[in-house]
């Protein structure tokens, strides 16, 4: 285990919580933190979130108590109380959420005591301890959503049979979060479901408040969002399932089947899958000539976060028919998570399983590739990684250059693409990903 993380591909838990709140409708985050935290996160989004910074109340518009040396000595609770009071005067929102940074967490300010005073007066307010040293932004997403589930979401709501919530797609960390959530909603609507995705322009604060009426929570990640789903289960009795991010026909079909089963829906899922697959491959029909003529099948190296590493690798293996040879996970994961994820990336038929590594230091990827394909200059006949393709973050451009491969940035940081409503989920999302991969491979043509 290394003593550092190279170019961390996430923010701290405060950053994840803040990004999550920025993406929720009508929510005003209140930072109880040092002066630079909001800016640090805004600049990080600026560099890594595919040109998306802040939202309704994001960037440097975010209220923050900006605690200093004096507060470190005397405590910052009084300053927080003043800040909440003035925030309520100025900032226009439907829900106010206080989150903490390292400084206030270490000095031990009791923020819940402060927010309770306001809550008692009827202010919609939530407190979450997100101090940056607790973990990374994915943890921050879970901490803040779990607190919202406990402190804000309606208690004892009547279950709506065909209503589901989507968790596990983390705003700004998944730079395609809006497009991906839209794709998931459209996919699940084919089952006649009412889909609450929390973070898109179609979602509202009322949907968040009433999210306890869902019949099922669907966590589209092996790691992110699981804690929030557990909070729903404990507080509101909503059961949950987990599934990989559904990118392309195979994963989308699997999700439709899994959800239909979990909700015991009485409809012909296979007919839906058949129709959607037919439509998907109809789009591929005219590609057939050049896919073959230009020899577009590749060996793939995937360096990404949990969601993309799993979803993209499966898409390449199951749908596009490429050969993923190395998958590097850049998240911090425990043994259990590693075992569970490794099991999901098995090959099939003659397509071998890729080599899987868990290493936060992505510049090591070249070392793993060299291990797979040892170079012997004297060999006339030798197996190489060519023709290769690198799917990862923008930082994998250096790797792609080293192995002479085209590259596509999909996992944070994405600094060389502008993303608005693009997404890779569902059947049609698979087409979008295929377009992006193949376009990157033929730019020189």
């Amino acid at each position, binding site marked *: 285990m290394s003593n550092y993380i190279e170019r961390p591909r996430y923010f701290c838990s405060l950053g994840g919580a803040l990004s999550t709140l920025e993406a929720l409708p009508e929510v005003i985050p209140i*930072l109880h933190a040092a002066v630079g*935290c909001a800016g640090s996160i805004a600049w990080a989004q600026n560099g890594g979130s595919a040109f998306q910074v802040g939202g309704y109340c994001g960037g440097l*518009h975010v209220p923050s108590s900006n605690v200093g040396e004096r507060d470190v000595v005397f405590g910052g609770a009084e300053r927080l109380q003043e800040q909440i009071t003035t925030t309520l005067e100025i900032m226009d929102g439907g829900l106010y959420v206080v989150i903490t940074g390292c400084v206030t967490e270490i000095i031990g300010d009791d923020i819940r005591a402060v927010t309770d005073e306001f809550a008692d007066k009827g202010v919609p307010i939530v407190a979450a301890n997100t101090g940056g040293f607790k973990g990374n932004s994915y943890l921050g997403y879970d901490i803040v959503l779990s607190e919202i589930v406990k402190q804000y979401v309606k208690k004892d709501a009547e279950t709506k049979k065909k209503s589901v919530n989507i968790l596990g797609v983390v705003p700004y960390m998944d730079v395609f979060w809006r497009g991906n959530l839209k794709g998931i909603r459209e996919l699940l609507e084919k089952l006649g479901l009412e889909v609450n995705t929390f973070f898109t322009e179609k979602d509202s604060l009322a949907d968040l408040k009433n999210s306890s009426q869902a019949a099922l929570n669907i966590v589209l990640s092996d790691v992110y969002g699981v804690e929030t789903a557990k909070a729903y289960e404990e507080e509101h009795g909503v059961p949950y399932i987990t599934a990989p991010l559904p990118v392309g026909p195979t994963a989308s079909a699997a999700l439709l089947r899994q959800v239909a089963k979990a909700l015991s829906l009485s409809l012909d899922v296979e007919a839906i899958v058949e129709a959607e697959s037919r439509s998907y491959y109809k789009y591929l029909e005219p590609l057939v000539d050049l896919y073959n003529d230009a020899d577009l099948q590749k060996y793939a190296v995937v360096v990404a976060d949990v969601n993309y590493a799993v979803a993209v690798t499966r898409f390449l293996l199951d749908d596009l028919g490429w050969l993923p040879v190395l998958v590097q996970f850049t998240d911090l994961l425990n043994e259990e998570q590693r075992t569970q994820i490794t099991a999901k990336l098995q090959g099939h038929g003659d397509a071998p399983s890729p080599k899987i590594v868990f290493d936060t230091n992505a510049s090591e990827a070249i070392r793993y590739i060299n291990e797979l394909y040892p170079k012997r200059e004297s060999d006339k006949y030798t197996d190489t990684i060519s023709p290769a393709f690198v799917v990862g973050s923008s930082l994998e451009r250096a790797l792609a250059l080293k192995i002479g491969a085209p590259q596509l940035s999909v996992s944070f940081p994405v600094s060389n693409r502008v993303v608005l409503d693009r997404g890779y989920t569902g059947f049609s999302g698979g087409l979008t990903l295929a377009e992006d991969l193949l376009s990157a491979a033929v730019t020189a043509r």
Partner: protein
Amino acid sequence: MSYLQDREPPKREERLSACIVYGGDLCGLAGKTRGCACMQDGERSFTQGSICLLLPGISILNSIPDNVNIVHGAVGCGACSHSQNANTRSGGNLRFGAVKDAIWVSTALNEMDVISGAETKLYNAVIEADRLYRPKTITVIASCVPGIIGDDIDGVVDQVRSQVAARVIPIHFEGFKTKIWATAYDAVYHGLARSVFEDPRFNEPIIKDDLYHERIASEKARTVNLLTVSSMGLADEQELSRYLNALDRKVNVFPNFADSDSMYKLKYASLSISTCPTHDDYLLDYLKEEHGIPHIIRHMPIGIENTSAWIRDVAAALGKSDVAERFIARETAELSAALERYKGFFKGKKVFISAGEFRALATANLLHDLGFEIAGIRSFHHDDFANVEYEKLLQTASAEIPINIANVQPFEEANLLTALKPDLFLGHWNGNSTATKLGIPSHVIYNTGLAYIGYRGAYELARRLYRQLSNPAFNKNLSQYVRLPYKKEWYAQNPFTYIKAHLDVPEGYQGTEEAGR
């Protein structure tokens, strides 16, 4: 006396009486130049998040070739490097012909580290980073957490130095300790001066002949130091170097993108020249006190008048005033002719500016040159270096224009802009969203890919503003459907409502109290 023997430089609140709270008019601020102490204890009862010294600090470190920056803190501190990496890549490509990502790593302090300290982790991180990346330098920076839990980064660096090939530079960026992020420049200069200014041993001649000292002296006489700011790109750097070359001087450019192996050369110059007084006084004082190098720190070469003044100051110090006058006459004649076609279009349009203090004021000067009318200025902090600029502004702008000192605080900006309705807004990186959402044409006040400085910068800025103003549809359309997160009632209030009355009001002070609560 130099502060260099201390491990950390003093914060600017103390060293320069810098402050971040003021709301009033130009007359009030320009008139107060007899003392800034009145603004010392100003505070807001409502504040918004901002940046801390760590961000501008590491933007310099990320530009230094072959440096690995170890961020000792929680995993989110230093995440701004993802944005700064764009500059490292493009700036490196332009200067060295190769695209390279910045290398930064985080010790990612966790709950256990907070309880038991993380000095060992840092020690090991320095050794691992040295082995893996083989860098020339390793900067070890402390963010808030080590500052509170008491990790001694200087002690760790002292211990680890003998174990690694790279030169290791500890720098303090504990964000909670200062609200003036310009303290970052002092911290960077402090760290570099303590660690990499030693002459390399190979520089020592094998035989010192009679001419040794003469050679050093003549080399010194022909060389000047140009201190750059991280918000300047190569175009701006080249523009200023062009002037200095025209005055027959070689230029040491420091610190952005400067090779750490050559930084010692700063000591072998006859003059140091600042491009931004907000940035540089700390290092300039050091070079003067320790190495007897005189300096010029007065004008920022943004704007035609300012640029000419900057060149004149340098030329006077070098005894080249006649050359400079001919140079200035030729350059300004050429520039005025080129600007003619834009001036009519700009004439009378109202512009609002928001940025670091010196940059904002110097840019106001330039925009006035271009024909704009200054509608208001917001600066991120205030210190006495800028007094001269406020005096200049008084000559070109109305004494009633609003001046707002704020470490960003866009809520005050939103209020001001709604009332003033300027035709154009120029703001800092990450600081243009307020104006844009209000439908005001906006332009970024620095971007390292663009030119701003000198005569060339004046022309390029004019050209860009002409483009921006020719079709502001993006901003106009957006403002119809997207809004800022403030309540309607806020816009009806005094923009400085949340500035608390100052605690130490000197006798006879007539500042912001009427605006305060």
